[in-house]
């Protein structure tokens, strides 16, 4: 294979607990997607510890990604990085690596919105063009769709994110991180053994959801010890997923789009997938879910979105490359869409 025939983008992802490096051609061929996760000894993500982890593994992950792609650094055309939203210390670590690489190789730097990258990799991998997207992860719960130059937010959480809600409950219930199995997967496993629906709060406000009351009520039921853990995991999922499914259906009916895309870390959940499939069918739309490898935070999505942005004339001068902790997707122009 003649490497010079193609143009390549290397993408760095480091918004939270994953440090990832991916390499994509300008046509969306993913040549590498390597990541290393910070697993806290106890509790949730400690931002400073996560950043320390990222700094430690950065070299190894970079080398492995280049190895897997068969490329040399000099083959790269641009460096993309997730500029936000996310945790400050984690973001800054990735941004520093990206700036160093771009200046050393003397190639352009492209700052990418992490949430938009989740949508773009989903579209690439499922072949969808103009979906209503439900993006659910540890830090985000967003229902969006494209209109006039930007992705517009139709619904979102007004307090905590869906993945966060499930993770915190799982930790309270004593579930442990296992290698290759996120906390959410452990909860999902237990939920499949639940049978009885426990009454919990269901809060939908317009197209927004509120999950903090549901989490508090679930933990309180857990501490009372009157229900089986399996039933609680099952009920928590049923309530939380029904809420996000309801607002997704409303956005679908409102926008009259014909595709649904499920993306982000929680997209791997089979029960959530099943619910959205039913909704899509009922609204005469096609249901699509991002493949598991690209569901959680990954470098490939940053690389691909970087390629899209660069092809449309976007790049980020170093002096404008500060990380943006709370960068909303509706603030970002996406000239590559349509």
């Amino acid at each position: 294979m003649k490497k010079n025939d193609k143009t390549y983008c290397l993408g760095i992802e480091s918004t939270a607990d994953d440090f990832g490096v991916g390499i994509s051609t300008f046509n969306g061929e993913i040549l590498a997607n390597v990541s290393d996760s910070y697993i806290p000894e106890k509790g949730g993500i400690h931002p400073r510890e996560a950043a320390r982890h990222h700094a430690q593994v950065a070299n190894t992950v970079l080398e492995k990604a280049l190895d897997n792609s068969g490329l040399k650094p000099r083959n790269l055309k641009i460096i993309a990085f997730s500029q936000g939203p996310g945790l400050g210390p984690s973001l800054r670590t990735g941004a520093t690596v990206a700036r160093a690489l771009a200046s050393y190789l003397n190639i352009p730097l492209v700052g990418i919105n992490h949430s938009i990258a989740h949508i773009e990799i989903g579209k690439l991998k499922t072949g969808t063009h103009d979906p209503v997207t439900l993006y659910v992860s540890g830090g985000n719960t967003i229902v969006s769709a494209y209109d006039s130059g930007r992705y517009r937010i139709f619904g979102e959480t007004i307090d905590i994110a869906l993945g966060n809600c499930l993770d915190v409950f799982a930790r309270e219930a004593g579930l442990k991180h296992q290698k290759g199995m996120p906390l959410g997967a452990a909860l999902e496993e237990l939920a499949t053994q639940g049978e009885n629906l426990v009454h919990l709060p269901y809060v939908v406000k317009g197209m927004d959801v509120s999950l903090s009351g549901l989490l508090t009520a679930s933990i309180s039921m857990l501490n009372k010890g009157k229900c089986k853990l399996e039933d609680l995991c099952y009920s928590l999922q049923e309530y939380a997923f029904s809420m996000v499914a309801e607002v997704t259906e409303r956005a679908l009916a409102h926008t009259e789009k014909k595709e649904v895309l499920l993306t982000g870390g929680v997209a791997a959940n089979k029960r959530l997938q099943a619910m959205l499939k039913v909704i899509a069918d009922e609204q005469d739309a096609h249901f699509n879910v991002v493949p598991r490898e690209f569901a959680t935070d990954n470098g490939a999505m940053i690389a691909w979105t970087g390629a899209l942005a660069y092809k449309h004339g976007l790049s980020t001068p170093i002096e404008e490359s500060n990380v943006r902790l709370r960068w909303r997707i509706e603030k970002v122009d996406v000239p590559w869409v349509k």
Partner: protein
Amino acid sequence: MGEVIAQTLFKKGAEASLHVATWNGRKVVLKTRFPKRYRHEKLDKNIRTYRTVHEPQLMNEAKKAGVPTPVIFQVDLRNSRIIMEFIEGKQIKQLLGSLSPNERKEMCTRIGEAIGKLHKHGVIHGDLTTSNMIVNREGRIFLVDFGLGEKSKELEAKGVDLHLMKRALQSTHYQYAEECFEAVTKGYAATVGEDRTKEIAGKIREIERRGRYVEGRKDDEEN
């Protein structure tokens, strides 16, 4: 009780289906909350029953507050169905774009007044969008779709309600969302008073910042 004849589906929403029909010689809307197959059966039944019971109550409260809503003729809990008056008119969603900037502002001010009246009376609409507002032939603004509403006098509930209005303007009428919401706030203040409005505006900012990824928080100063 009267028989329903000649049903035609005119809107299949996500939450309910709306049919136009004739009932005792009147033109009516049948709002039916059909079962949702994606939800657990028990949860689904609870949600549909709860909303079918509460929606007419809130519409009635809204009327007492001086905000026009369709007249309720019948509530059928077994089928989660409400029969209500058909309002001849146009959704504000369709209307807003065809108005001149001044007319648009005036319309939004009147929306704000209506929301103010609801809140003053302790009614939270729960889904304030321009699709849920109908202007009839005489130019009166009717509010519909109270299924997600509640009775509350809490600042938090009012703040979320107005926040939803703002968000709906931003997603659907993004070209002039800002001036529209400004006019909504003006009308709201004319009804509930400046002080109260300031308090609620502060609450809206708090709600917006509570969402995890919103700019303008203190910890945003970056390097």
